[in-house]
């Protein structure tokens, strides 16, 4: 049995474990509910409000495709980070709290490898979260408004296939951003044995970054905040795609990931596991 396949088996069992938890299933349902509520609300209201409201809202009535973008814009501020925070709270602190961490380490699994499996399962969880939002939005939008050729922000009209490709790029970008948040979450999770404490800490970190990002006097700090370029996923709707902000945002996300993953490793590999 090669090392890679045993690693993948470990990862698969970890993902199954995450997917099997009742609270995570409830979380997925909430993530899926938001775009459905949005689509129904816009369908029910009659007065169009051009040029008002959050991003992409005004375009929904013409094309269900935009439900996906509006839902991502709405959920990336709190719901998706909250989902990652919950999963990362469970990752190490949850195991320690439940007393299962030391059993995990009695089987011949190196700590570094266990940490890697835990992190990758968080990334898979984040990707599933983003995918659930988009798929629920496309289903609700398609049902209520229909799907068709999409008018980009630049005024160019592209086919649905092209637009879905752009949406996939946006999903990949947001998953990368959430993966950076998962690295922070994994580090926080190694610091405590209280999963709820880790979840709250990560959520508060995200909220604090959003607040700091909204204070114009602190604009020197903004480029360093992880959340600062999260809304740049909308740049896929420009023609040609505007990569500058997303490229910088990806670099920032990778930097956060590198710093906090290595910190989580330093903490976890040297930690006394007593419970």
């Amino acid at each position, binding site marked *: 049995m090669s090392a890679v396949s045993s690693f993948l088996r470990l990862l698969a069992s970890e993902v199954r474990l995450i997917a099997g938890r009742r609270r995570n299933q409830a979380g997925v349902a909430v993530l899926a509910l938001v775009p459905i509520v949005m689509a129904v609300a816009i369908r029910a209201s009659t007065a169009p409000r051009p040029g*008002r409201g959050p*991003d992409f809202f005004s375009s929904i009535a013409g094309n269900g495709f935009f439900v996906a973008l509006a839902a991502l814009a709405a959920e990336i501020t709190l719901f998706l980070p909250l989902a990652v925070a919950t999963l990362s709270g469970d990752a190490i602190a949850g195991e320690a709290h439940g007393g299962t961490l030391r059993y995990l380490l009695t089987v011949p699994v190196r700590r570094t490898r266990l940490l890697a499996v835990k992190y990758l399962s968080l990334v898979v969880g984040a990707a599933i979260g983003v995918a659930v939002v988009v798929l629920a939005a496309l289903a609700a939008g398609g049902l209520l408004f229909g799907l068709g050729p999409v008018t980009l922000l*630049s*005024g160019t009209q592209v086919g649905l296939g092209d637009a879905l490709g752009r949406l996939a790029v946006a999903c990949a970008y947001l998953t990368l951003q959430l993966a950076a948040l998962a690295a922070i979450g994994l580090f926080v999770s190694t610091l405590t044995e209280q999963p709820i404490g880790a979840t709250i800490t990560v959520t508060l970190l995200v909220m604090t970054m959003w607040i700091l990002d909204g204070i114009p006097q602190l604009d020197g700090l903004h480029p360093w905040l992880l959340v600062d370029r999260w809304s740049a996923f909308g740049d896929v709707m*420009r023609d040609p795609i505007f990569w500058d902000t997303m490229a910088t945002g990806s670099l920032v996300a990778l930097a956060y990931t590198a*710093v906090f993953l290595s910190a989580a*490793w*330093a903490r976890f590999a040297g930690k006394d596991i007593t419970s």
Partner: protein
Amino acid sequence: MSFIEEHPHVRWVAPAAVLALVAGGATLTSAQADQGLAAKTAEQLLVDLQGSTEDSFSGTVATKVDLGLPALPDQGGGTTSFEGLASGAHTLRVWADGAQRQRVTLLGDGGEAAMVRDGRTMWLWNAQEQTATRAALPTEATPAQARARAAAHAKKARASASAGQLPSTPQEAARYVLDRIDPSTRVTTNGSATVAGRAAHELVLTPRAGDSLVRQVAIDVDAQTSMPLRVRVTSAATGSSAIDVGFTSLDLDAPAASIFAFTPPLGATVETAEREAGAETSSATPKAAAAKDTAAKPQVVGTGWSAVAVQRLPADAARALAPGAPGGAAGDDARANDAMSFLENLPVTSGDWGSGRVVEGTLFSAILTTDGRLAVGAVPADRLQAALTTTAKTSAAR
């Protein structure tokens, strides 16, 4: 037992090293590294600027404008439009392929405003309003011809002013310009800079007049193509830049032809603007246009950077604009009401010249007097008051 297991704290070196690497990398890329460019004189830079022929490129431009003006009445309904460039920070994408084809888009959150020009056809696009406006440019409005006309004009004017002294080479022209602006402006170079990852020389214009609100104008000129890459205007009032416009990325390859093709999307409102593109700005403010037509030429007090223009507005415009005047802007439309409330919120100032409302920005100030005179200049408001007094005296003497 390995070293790292005996000394678990050593592991923390790893995150510390990663952090140092990230911080160091970020500092290095943003550092204004000296490019080892040969120093150039202001004259050489001016010659280079004239020789710049780069008109095919694509890039991203960041603008940051802080004129220190009170918030203007909201007219765009919060949508992304080019008027918004007058204040705050914005990102523009620009493409150009020769003098005939340009495209500029203003990026906004969930919105975009675009200007696409291909030959004589120009499209204006607003994503949030889903409107496409088509304008046919008059033939002479092509930049090349306009430039030729302007050059011919300038030549004629100069010929009549100083026959026989015409600069015939870029070097002479640069000398000529420097000589003309030297009494008011110190033109220097300030080493090299890095703009959009490109090495650039910095040309600095500093007003000699101590009372101007403009402290200096810095122009970064690309070392390779002599294209201006960034312009910064520093305010003397705040000490920080009031206008900062520069490329953040630049590609000198000609953009693909498809960039300049615009087809209004289905479902968008398509409008046609038949009038000249140039008429659009003046027709937007009919009062200002009327004022321009009928008012006398403005009197200019002072010279160079501290010059103040004093203009008597035509009686009807003055009446309409005068705050608190009976029947002023008689609620004919919401925009006029907005303008009225904007004016009424401005501070009042008075002196031996009368009284009026004053706007003090970071680069210029303006006073609109109750008797319908408008004084504008790149100077603090007390200089405007002095100019108003001077012009009142001269017109009384007349």
